[in-house]
C-alpha cells in the first residue's frame, strides 16, 4: 500500500488487506457490495485492536498505573487523529458515541430539547436516514416545534426552489451530506451559508461522506457533524459527533454517569468540561483505537484518491449495467457520477428487490434489499424497496462485472 495509489490496479491490490474478502459464498468468491450499510476492515485495524487488548488495556482516565495511562493515551490519541482527519479546530470538539445514531440523538436531546419549543421550526429533507428523522420527531412530539421538509426534486436532487421559505425563522437545518439510497451529494456549500444567513444552525449527517471523500468541518462551516466508525473501516460500536465548542459548552449533558461530572453530591452534580461532559460511562476504548487505525489506513491511501476511485467505479457501473440490462434496470439517483457517491439503488424490472438480493447472493454478490432506513424517501421515489449496491476502496471493475452478470441471471430467472 502506498500513499500515492491511484490506479485501479493499485486499489484492487488493497483487497488482500481484508481477510473477509478472501472468503467464499456458495463456492463463489465473495463480491461485497454493501459498504454503505457497514464496511469491512483491514488486518491493520484488527491488529491494532488486538494489540490494545493484549498489551495496553485498562479503563481509561483516573488510573495512575501504566496500563491505564497507555489506554488513556491511546484513547485520547484516537480523538486527536479523528479531529485532524475531519479538520476540527479543537480535538476536544470530537465526542465519541456508540454510533452516528447516538450522535444525532445527542444533538436532538441536548441541543434540541433546550432550544426548541412551540412556534419554533427545524428543516429536514425527505432524503434523510431514519437516524436523522426519528430523533427530531421524538423531540418535536415532546416540545411542540414544527418540522419542515425539503422534498425530492429532479434527478435524485433536492428541490431547493422553496429553500428560503423553508429556512425562514427556522432554528436548525439537519441534513445528510450524501444520501445512503441515491448517492446524491447535497450542495452543502450552498445550503450551509443559506441556513446561517436565515439564523439556523446546521447539523450534518456525514455517515456516507466521511468514509468516502475528504472532510473538513471548518471549511464546511457546519455546526454539528455526525458519522460512524463501522462505515469507514473501523469497528462496530463507535460513532463520532463533532460540534462547535461554543455550542457544546452551552449544551446540557445528555447521558449522566461516571466520567462526565466534576462533582456529585446527593444534592446534585456539576458536569465536567467538553468532551467528557458528553462521554458518560466507560467509553468505546478499543473501538477508538480501531477507528484511529482505520483513519491511518485511509490517510495512507488518501481520501482524494479514494473519492476518485469511487467516481470511476460508479461511472463504469452505470455504463456496464445499462449495457448488460438495458431498460430492464433502473438506477435511482443523479446520472452524473461526479455528483454522487458509489451507492446504486437498483430496480430490476419484474423482480422484487428481495428476490434480486437473494439470487445475487447465490452468485456470492452481497447487496442489500429494502428501504435502507429511508422510508419517507422511498415513498417519494414511489418504490417499496430497492436492491442497493455500494462501493468502497476495495471494490473494482471485476466486482461490477460480477454484479452485472448476476443481475442478468436474476432477470432471466424471473422473466421466463
Amino acid at each position, binding site marked *: 500500500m502506498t500513499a500515492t495509489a491511484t490506479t485501479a490496479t493499485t486499489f484492487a491490490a488493497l483487497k488482500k488487506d481484508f481477510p473477509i474478502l478472501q472468503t467464499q459464498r*456458495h463456492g463463489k468468491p465473495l463480491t461485497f457490495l454493501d459498504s454503505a450499510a457497514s464496511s469491512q476492515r483491514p488486518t491493520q485495524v484488527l491488529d491494532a485492536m488486538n494489540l490494545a487488548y493484549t498489551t495496553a488495556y485498562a479503563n481509561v482516565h483516573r488510573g495512575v498505573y501504566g496500563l491505564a495511562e497507555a489506554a488513556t493515551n491511546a484513547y485520547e490519541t484516537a480523538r486527536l487523529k479523528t479531529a485532524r482527519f475531519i479538520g476540527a479546530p479543537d480535538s476536544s470538539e470530537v465526542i465519541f458515541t456508540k454510533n452516528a445514531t447516538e450522535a444525532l440523538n445527542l444533538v436532538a436531546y441536548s441541543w434540541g430539547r433546550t432550544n426548541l419549543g412551540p412556534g419554533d421550526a427545524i428543516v429536514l429533507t425527505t432524503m434523510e436516514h431514519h437516524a436523522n428523522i426519528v430523533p427530531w420527531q421524538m423531540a418535536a412530539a415532546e416540545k411542540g416545534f414544527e418540522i419542515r421538509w425539503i422534498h425530492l426534486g429532479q434527478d435524485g436532487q433536492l428541490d431547493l426552489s422553496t429553500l428560503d421559505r423553508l429556512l425562514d425563522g427556522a432554528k436548525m437545518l439537519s441534513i445528510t451530506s450524501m444520501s445512503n439510497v441515491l448517492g446524491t451529494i447535497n450542495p452543502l456549500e450552498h445550503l450551509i451559508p443559506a441556513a446561517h444567513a436565515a439564523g439556523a444552525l446546521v447539523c450534518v449527517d456525514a455517515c456516507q461522506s466521511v468514509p468516502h471523500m475528504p472532510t473538513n468541518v471548518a471549511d464546511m462551516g457546519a455546526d454539528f457533524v455526525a458519522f460512524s466508525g463501522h462505515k469507514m473501516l473501523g469497528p462496530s460500536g463507535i460513532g463520532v459527533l463533532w460540534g462547535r465548542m461554543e455550542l457544546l459548552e452551552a449544551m446540557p449533558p445528555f447521558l449522566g454517569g461516571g466520567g462526565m461530572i466534576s462533582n456529585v453530591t446527593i444534592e446534585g452534580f456539576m458536569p465536567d468540561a467538553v468532551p467528557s461532559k458528553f462521554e458518560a460511562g466507560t467509553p468505546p476504548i478499543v473501538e477508538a483505537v480501531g477507528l484511529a487505525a482505520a483513519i491511518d489506513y485511509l490517510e495512507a491511501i488518501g481520501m482524494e484518491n479514494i473519492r476518485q476511485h469511487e467516481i470511476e467505479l460508479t461511472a463504469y457501473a452505470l455504463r456496464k449495467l445499462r449495457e448488460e440490462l438495458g431498460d430492464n434496470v433502473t438506477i435511482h439517483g443523479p446520472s452524473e457520477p461526479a455528483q454522487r457517491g458509489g451507492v446504486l439503488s437498483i430496480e430490476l424490472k419484474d423482480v*422484487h*428487490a*428481495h*428476490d434480486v438480493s*437473494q*439470487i445475487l447472493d*447465490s452468485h456470492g454478490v452481497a447487496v442489500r*434489499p*429494502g*428501504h435502507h432506513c429511508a*422510508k419517507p424517501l*422511498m415513498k417519494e421515489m414511489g418504490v*417499496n*424497496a430497492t436492491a442497493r449496491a455500494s462501493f468502497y476502496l476495495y471494490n473494482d471493475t471485476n466486482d461490477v462485472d460480477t454484479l452485472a452478470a448476476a443481475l442478468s441471471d436474476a432477470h432471466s*430467472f*424471473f422473466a*421466463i
Partner: protein
Amino acid sequence: MSDIEDLYREIILDHYRSPRNAGELETPPATKAEGFNPLCGDEIVVYLILDDAGIITDLKVGGQGCSISQSSASMMSAAVKGKTVEHAREVMKTFKGLMSIAETGAELTEPTPDEIRKLGDLAALRGVVKFPTRIKCATLSWNTLDEALNEAQA
C-alpha cells in the same frame, strides 16, 4: 437442485406471477387485517368473510412484496378459502412447522409426510427454511390471516 432453485420452485413463481384471490372486499361485511414486514417493507392485506358456521366464505389478498411473500399469500388464500376456521388453523400450524416455527410455548414438531402432502402447493415453500431471513416473508400472510380470523371471531 441448488438451494436457490429449491427456493424458487416453478409453482412458486407461478403463484407470484398469477396470484389467486387477489383484490379487496368491502368492509364491513368483510374483516380486514394488515401485515407488515419492517425488514423489507412487504405488506399483506387480508380481507375475509366468516359465516356463522365458521366457514371462510370469501377471502381476498392485497399488498405487495417479494415472490416469497406474494406466492405464499396466494397459496394461503387457495388453501383456506371455503374451508372452516379450524381447518385453516390446522394448515397454518403445519405450514409454520415446515418453516421451523413452533407455536408460542410449544415444542417444534416437524410435520409428517402425510401432513405435508395435505399442504398441496404450499409444500413447495419448504426450500425457504434454508434462508432464515425469508421465513418472515413466507409467514407474513399467515400471521395476517391469523389476525383477521381473531378479529372476525372477536
